[in-house]
């Protein structure tokens, strides 16, 4: 199925925020991150209005980081 619509994918297929997925601060930026069993976090989605932030590899989906906040 190919959808031809100006709506974004998340408008049609809602982004599921599960219990282990949370909105936290990482390096001064807000990210949706999934808490892993070892206590670290995996980036799911970066929430930013600055296009430069999306070029920063440390905020790319799948990156693992330790929360200090």
């Amino acid at each position, binding site marked *: *199925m*190919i*959808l*031809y*619509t*100006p*709506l*974004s*994918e998340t408008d*049609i*297929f*809602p982004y599921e925020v599960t219990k282990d997925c949370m909105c936290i601060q990482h390096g001064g930026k807000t990210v949706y991150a999934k808490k892993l069993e070892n206590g670290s976090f995996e980036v799911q989605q970066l929430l930013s209005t600055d296009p430069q932030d999306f070029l920063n590899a440390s905020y790319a989906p799948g990156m693992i980081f330790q929360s200090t906040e």
Partner: protein
Amino acid sequence: MEKELKEKEILPESSPKEEAGAAASIVEKIQQLGQTNVPQAPDSNIHVLSIIGQIEGHIQLPPQNKTTKYEHILPQLIAIEQNPKIEGLVILLNTVGGDVEAGLALSEMIASLSKPTVSIVLGGGHSIGVPIAVASDYSFIVPTATMTIHPIRLTGLVIGVPQTFEYLDKMQERVIQFVINHSNIKEEKFKDLMMDKGNLTRDIGTNVIGKDAVKYGLIDEVGGVKHAMAKVSELIQLQNEEEDQVIQ
């Protein structure tokens, strides 16, 4: 005579069962439509078909989406073609797009009806709503309605990248060809609008508003319900005259 009198005597007295039934009917109307009374369309030779919400095709969309399902519309279009009492069709369109193949199927069905068809774009006729709007014999757009013209995109996992892009390109070409064959817009202009930058926040493309859609030749005229009804009546009359001439 006696029978009539009896009926007159019986009619004013309604049984408690009937009263309960009427009350239940009112409650149902309020629950379903937010109204106690629903206007009934009189017997008419013009059928009105609504295509509202997203166009839903082979895959069911999540429940928060409001959709028009192709399995509901396609059989209705066949029934309209077969019903001799229906002489013309008015399509009310307010869609944000949806499944490409389902949208093209609806467009082709509307375009191939033998009866006069008129469409009205209300609110929005975006993306795959564009071919549906132009599929009719004559199209209207209300002054405040918009039509978003943008490229077909694919999000998510892509397997076999060159083939997928070729497939998307062909699919986009099918939409473009349908639109230019069923409207007065030139292919170059349509592609320019589709690839234009700086108009949409998240994509390339153009948001065409009422009067502009007519200026570009995409839609025939700016107008609303009364204009559409008058136009479809005119087209029916023309068709009937043509048929009479053939018979003579």
